[in-house]
């Protein structure tokens, strides 16, 4: 299934300036699997979203549709068909 990922502006430089990525992954797609695929395709984005131990960074928010995955099943959250996933900087940083 196709998953569209919206990138925080600071991450776009590591994707050739693209504001969004589109990935084709086998369903069902979890947020964790999506992060794995992004890390392979764009290591510069992958390591900014998660540290080398695989933990989503504290001041990074991942939204599936309107919902923060920390309020759902975290990286086990399943991405519904057609939902946009946003990888954004939390306002808590900096």
């Amino acid at each position, binding site marked *: 299934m196709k998953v569209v990922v919206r990138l925080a502006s600071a*991450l776009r430089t*590591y*994707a050739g300036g693209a504001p969004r990525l589109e990935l084709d992954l086998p369903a069902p797609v979890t947020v964790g699997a999506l992060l794995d695929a992004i890390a392979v*395709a*764009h290591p*510069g984005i992958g390591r900014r979203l998660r540290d080398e131990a695989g933990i989503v960074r504290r001041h990074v928010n991942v939204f599936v549709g309107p919902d923060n995955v920390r309020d759902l099943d975290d990286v086990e959250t399943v991405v519904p068909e057609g939902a946009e996933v946003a990888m954004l900087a939390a306002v808590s940083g900096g």
Partner: protein
Amino acid sequence: MPIDSPTQDGPTIRPMEAIDASAGDVVVLVGTTKGLFSLSSNPGRGAWTLTGPWFQGEEINAAALDCRNGRTRLLVGATSSHWGPSVYRSDDLGATWVEPEPQTLAFPDDAGAAVARVWQLQPAGEARPDVVYAGVEPAALFRSDDGGEHFTLDEGLWGHPHRSQWQPGGGGLCLHTVLPDPAGGPRLAIAVSAAGFYRTLDGHTWEASNTGIRAPFLPEPTPEFGQCVHKVDRHPTQPDTLFLQHHWGVYRSDDFGGQWTEVGADSLPSTFGFPIVVDPNEPGTVYVLPLTSDEFRCTPDGQFRVFRTTDGGDVWHGLDKGLPQENAWLSVLRDGFSADTLTPAGLYVGTRTGEVFASPDAGETWRELARHLPPVLCVKPAVLR
């Protein structure tokens, strides 16, 4: 597959303003909570140029200018509160920067840890001109054999049986000091807050070496480890003589940390402080920046004074000419004070309130080089070759 983007990320090149300096000039890298600045001057150190900031919004806890082996390489340890740590490097004085992707300063998969901050980037001596050490949080040591392009975890220290008992200081569990052997031998020392001073004599086997350092915050008065060492320095011609600023007290060792003796308690206004600097020309001349106490981490009596000993730690005198002496409630972090390698030594101090002070004459006179910078985390001078 991704759209509108390359399938692989190569090194990122960031064009920025370069430092305007040439061989013989002094460059002082100033790392702040919001980016990197530099101050540069000719060897007279009278007129200075401020450049930056690079890496806006990122904490710069570590920086180095490495001029060994024909390089003119800037190394910077930066941390974005959102996107994590990076080590950047530039071989053209900051005009362009390389940010390796993936980052080469990272724990191996089986370590079960992640670099939170890079606290120290320390080129080894001239005898090993391609070696650079990195100290990170959580406390670990990495080594590069190619001038800071790739790093490998020191497994001996990482596997030390004490490590699980190390406690973080206020800044985190950080390995903040690396003292390579100036002669290029295997001996190496590090300090961790709050684990203490550790050394290896063979380059592989590490031992805690804190005998004599009091730890009033622990049940045992002088435990084997757990001391809150803030910084350690030594002169390259006397590598066994170490000077250490502890959370409680200033210490000296004459046997590479085998035994420590407290110094300065009679002539310093306070033995609490963070940085300690050994003069590059006089091995018995040492500088500290006393703060009032653990509870009140500001300069005593609102007077900003650097204290210097010229007899190896017995007697200390305050140096204040040109430094603010009224209502100067300043604070300086462990890497906020350093010396260049000229004669007489140039001294550089950056404060948590964004001032940078400098002395071109080993502390006799001072002037303010910059103000209103973000809080200063590190000050790293070097002379360009």
